[in-house]
């Protein structure tokens, strides 16, 4: 059982009190360039997800607490949570530096902060 801590309200509980909602930091291509989206870009946005062995970044919701969304960094091998951070934030810099493969490419390609809601 995973023990999760909500970074918004501080509630700690096992994973049944929370809701895992897949990969974090998925960028919607139409947000920046709505008139010039290829089918491949839209396909990648909708369906293609990272599946790393090791460090992974996910979206979670404090389902049975404050009801807010947040991000979590988790190791898919050890199931250890490395960090919990806010939904509008990027991961802590040291974790972005540790990211490998497709995540490393992704963070390298990001030169601007997450769009604030």
């Amino acid at each position, binding site marked *: 059982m995973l023990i999760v801590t909500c970074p918004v309200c501080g509630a700690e509980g096992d994973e049944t009190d929370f809701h895992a909602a897949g990969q974090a930091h998925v960028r919607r291509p139409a947000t920046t360039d709505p008139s010039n989206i290829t089918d491949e870009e839209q396909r990648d946005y909708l369906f293609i997800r990272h599946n790393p062995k090791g460090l992974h970044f996910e979206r979670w919701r404090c389902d049975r607490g*404050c009801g807010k969304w947040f991000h979590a960094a988790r190791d898919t091998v050890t199931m250890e949570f490395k960090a919990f951070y806010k939904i509008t934030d990027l991961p802590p810099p040291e974790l972005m530096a540790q990211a490998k493969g497709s995540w490393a490419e992704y963070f390298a390609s990001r030169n601007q902060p997450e769009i604030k809601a």
Partner: protein
Amino acid sequence: MSELAYESPLAGAAAADGLAVSLREIPDRGMIDLRGLTSDDAFKAAAKGVLGVGLPTAPRTSVSWGDIKVLWLSVDQWLILCPRTKVHALIADLRGALSGIHSLAVDVSDMRAVIRMEGDGAREILMKGTSLDLLSGDYTAGTCRRMRFAEIAALLHVVEDDIFDVYVFRSYAHYTWDFLLATAREPAAIRLFGKQSVSL
């Protein structure tokens, strides 16, 4: 045309007999859902002006003033409890004070059923349905938190050390009642963490 008549969520439910704790429905509770931003000082001041007490901003806390209680539900959401007869007046006051401020006040008195559980051992019985460690000392009087209880969404309010209010959505009222009738039976009482009396 049929007359509108109020019926409590647990009307006609089985009687709570032979239980280790006392169990009853609180049918006459008025509830108001209030949403707004704590970063907005005007919102906080307006709410305090109407309620007489500042909104609790620390997670999982509640405050009370007279016959009004305010439970923290989220960083931007509170549940105001008051007598059912006062709801309309209170909501009118809130809307008046909050006009022009980004906020929401809605009468949700019929949204949830309230079950009161009272007595020694109530914490252990509640723990049969939730992953929360109610014996940990975090759940003192005044604490409220949403939880997963018997696989459904519920809100727990610790009224006093041995008095608990469990709020569940109205459609789950009978389910929750039956779950509590089964788990709170006198022979099913448990003692946790060294307090068991085991006879072999």
